[in-house]
């Protein structure tokens, strides 16, 4: 396949994919390896926008801005990480990436940055210098492609840069165009899980060590491998159980694991859908534009604090009174926020603990859940209940039938049905609706004290809200009662484990296999410590095999 960029160079995706080489950064020596066959390319996952940005920051530093808007990601089976497996590259998406890449490349070689990033001085700024370009692409290319480049690949980049430099009479312009092309290459935009013969277990396959490093790094840090992980891949250390464990322990213990945790929960909690959230200001004037971002950030900060900072029990995320607030969020929630420090700065995040008798607590009571799963002017217990079932408990809720009649839920003028509960009860009286609503509504109705914009209310149309309910034989009352039910539901911990595996691999876990059962059991033994779950998934063979692989015979590790 030939892909033409807006520049003058042609890149061959298949060619780039086919020419693989191996080198060690330590020695700089290039050792040719056999290109894998197509069938070895088990999985490719397109980098998410956040992964792209973090990767660029890790390669070039924080002074390089990543501007531009990425294409929306595709969600599959509840996770963008699974959708990433089937993301493709259309003409339009390539154009988008090309624009972003050109902007990044221009910064890398501009007068402010070139001395630091290029690493050598060309013989002349006005023309080509293949040796300097070769040195640059050898170093930067390995970081971008997350593996050493072959001599041919480096020469190709240097040569392309030289041709453009000749044409434009500028060494750095040539470097810029060639670098931009590297960043629209599938080698950068996709991460691959390529399999190779396992010399230590004849007849079996293992994941290529560099791809294993990328898998680990994007899973635990949401970014590109650091030099130490790349070294472990190059040395073969990652192919050993001890070597893998050393790296996984190092990465899980690093502060950078917060990036992985953050990316995972943003995906699992469907924060990408916030792009479409709006609230009617006539009803919810306290829901300002800033709330949209701050609502997500509040939940992510709550999670990071609990999961990373405290190694807390995952289940307690649904009941914890601890969170973080800004002035705007505190106003939305109608709670005091005393910031007596110097003013004239950006909104500050301050820790906040709800008192024991407060109806708020846990992430389900936060605006990131209550506002995301509500229409703009009213609540929908059905939508909230469905979101809870699907995204928190990994339970499937059937779609409504095509001929569903919404007359009861939409008619708010009927004096018989003053509250949402009244209207839904009437709606459920129709047999065709009752089945699904029995699954969703009891959970959603327990959150009726939170209006569409996340504010607390005790009445609706002058009638006190009844937030009681029952599920699986357990009675509960109000948001805190629901939080306790979710806390105690084994589906919640099973769900986060399943989604976490999918976040790493792009696939749902093989739940019947003993390897998966071991992960679940170690997660439970750790009192549902999410970092321990990540550690176990990162150490498991299940993470580094082709999804088509049949269960391997047990072997000693």
């Amino acid at each position: 396949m030939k892909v033409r960029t807006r520049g003058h160079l042609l890149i061959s995706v298949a060619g780039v994919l086919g020419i693989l080489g191996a080198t060690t950064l330590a020695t700089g020596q290039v050792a040719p390896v056999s290109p894998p066959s197509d069938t070895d390319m088990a999985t490719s996952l397109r980098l998410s926008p956040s992964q792209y940005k973090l990767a660029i920051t890790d390669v070039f530093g924080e002074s390089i801005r990543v501007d531009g808007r990425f294409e929306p990601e595709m969600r599959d089976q509840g996770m963008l990480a699974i959708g990433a497996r089937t993301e493709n590259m259309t003409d339009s998406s390539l154009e988008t990436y090309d624009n972003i890449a050109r902007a990044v490349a221009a910064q890398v070689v501009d007068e402010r940055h070139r001395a630091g990033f290029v690493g050598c001085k060309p013989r002349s700024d006005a023309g080509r210098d293949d040796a300097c370009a070769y040195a640059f692409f050898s170093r930067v290319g390995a970081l971008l492609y997350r593996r050493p480049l072959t001599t041919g690949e480096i020469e190709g980049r240097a040569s392309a840069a030289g041709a453009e430099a000749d044409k434009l009479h500028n060494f750095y312009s040539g470097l810029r165009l060639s670098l931009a092309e590297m960043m629209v290459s599938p080698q950068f935009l996709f991460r691959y899980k390529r399999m190779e013969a396992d010399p230590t277990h004849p007849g079996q396959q293992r994941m290529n060590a560099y791809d294993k490093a990328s898998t680990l790094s994007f899973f635990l840090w949401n970014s590109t491998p650091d030099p130490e992980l790349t070294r472990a891949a190059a040395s073969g250390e990652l192919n050993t159980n001890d070597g893998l464990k050393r790296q996984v322990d190092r990465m899980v213990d690093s502060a950078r694991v917060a990036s992985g945790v953050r990316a995972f929960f943003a995906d699992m909690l469907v924060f990408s859908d916030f792009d479409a959230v709006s609230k009617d200001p006539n009803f919810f004037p306290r829901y300002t534009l800033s709330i949209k971002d701050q609502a997500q950030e509040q939940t992510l900060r709550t999670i990071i604090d609990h999961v990373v900072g405290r190694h807390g029990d995952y289940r307690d995320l649904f009941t914890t009174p601890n969170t973080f607030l800004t002035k705007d969020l505190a106003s939305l929630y109608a709670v005091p926020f005393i910031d007596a420090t110097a003013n004239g700065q950006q909104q500050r995040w301050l820790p906040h603990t709800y008192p024991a008798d407060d109806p708020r607590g846990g992430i389900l009571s936060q605006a990131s859940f209550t506002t995301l799963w509500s229409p703009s002017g009213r609540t929908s217990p059905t939508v909230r209940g469905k979101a809870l079932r699907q995204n928190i408990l990994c339970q499937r809720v059937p779609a409504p039938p095509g001929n569903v009649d919404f007359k009861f839920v939409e008619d708010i003028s009927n004096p018989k049905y003053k509250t949402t509960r009244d209207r839904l009860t009437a709606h459920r009286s129709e047999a065709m609706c009752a089945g699904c609503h029995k699954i969703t509504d009891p959970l959603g109705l327990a959150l009726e004290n939170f209006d569409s914009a996340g504010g607390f209310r005790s009445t609706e149309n002058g009638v006190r809200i009844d937030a009681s309910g029952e599920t699986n034989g357990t009675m509960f009352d109000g948001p805190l009662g629901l939080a306790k039910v979710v806390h105690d539901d084994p589906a919640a911990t099973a769900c986060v484990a399943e989604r976490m595996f999918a976040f790493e691999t792009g696939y749902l876990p093989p739940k019947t296999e003993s390897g998966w059962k071991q992960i679940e059991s170690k997660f439970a033994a750790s009192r549902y410590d999410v970092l321990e779950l990540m550690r176990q998934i990162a150490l498991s063979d299940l993470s580094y095999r082709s999804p088509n692989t049949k269960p391997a015979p047990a072997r000693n590790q």
Partner: protein
Amino acid sequence: MKPKQHFYSFSAYRRSAVSMASAVVLSLPLLWSAPAQAETRGYVISWFATATNNPDFATNCPQAFKDPGSRFATTGKRRVDHAFVNGKEVAPYDYPDALDKDPNVETVIGKYAYGFDLGGPEATKFQDPETHEKVDNQLWRAVGCTTNFQFTPPTMPYMEGQAWNSGYADSAPAWTMQVSGDDLSKDGPVTITLDRALDHLQRDALSAIRTHVTYVLDPSPRSHNVLQGEIKNGVLLVTSGDVWLQGSLPYYLQIDLKNTHMRIRSETGSKLVGYWGGYTDWHKWAYMFTSRCGAGFDCIGIYRSVKKLADFAPDPKTGENQMISIAWRMEAVPAFLATQDGKLLATASSDALGGRLHDTVAANIPAQ
């Protein structure tokens, strides 16, 4: 014979304002803590301006009603007039008392004005359009026929609206109000505490003042005021006391009231709406209004009118009254109030004072 000695100079006022403020700091006792009571609700002033009453414009100001141009006598016109001090011609702006002709702006002759009975002379009383009680409000009589004040709430008088919306609300420290009492859902005695915050007002998605925001109060006692009042039939009333609140450019340098009266009621969503009245130093008021004489308002005419109608506190030497009766309309929305060291003084309640429980949100619209 040219007038001299007691002519008032705006520039000289600036100096005297500073010294008066210093005096206030020195004389105020440290009344920081509000009395310990069962319940304290916090508010932030979200609307504040001269209390206008324009539905009666035709009867209030028959001359201006017939000839709208007459209420818009411009400052340009005054520039052709002459003012002299000690025989030397001076700018009428700087020495409005020295102007050789009184512009004689039309004053309000109608029956109604918002405000309170401050015990002033019967001959100059208005009647409050809501309470029908007697009202002393000579400021309204002085300015109510001029263009700047031909606005009806929620629109503020022009100058005040400009100042509020172009700067004050979004940059000046907010004014706060605490209401304390044993049970604010019932009638009974209350304590009202006014302060200045260290934060400016926050706006909501409709650009109105956002509710339930937390404000940290200025620890200085300069703008700390404690008044005693009562809730009667659900209306908060104050009938005595002094108020001094530090203001900010571009309009209210300070709110300075003697014999303070307040009448405040709750609206849906627990917003407070009401009136503050009392006597204020007419020099200070005139300085606020006339020192930024933009948009062609007859500042000198208004200055002279306010001076003539001042009705309280005669100067022992000159006999001229130093204060004028006035009423301001105000609104306040629920806010949390705290001290700089993190102590919460008042909570933002969604309940109406003395009224029924209001839901914070009454939203209920058809499915989308």
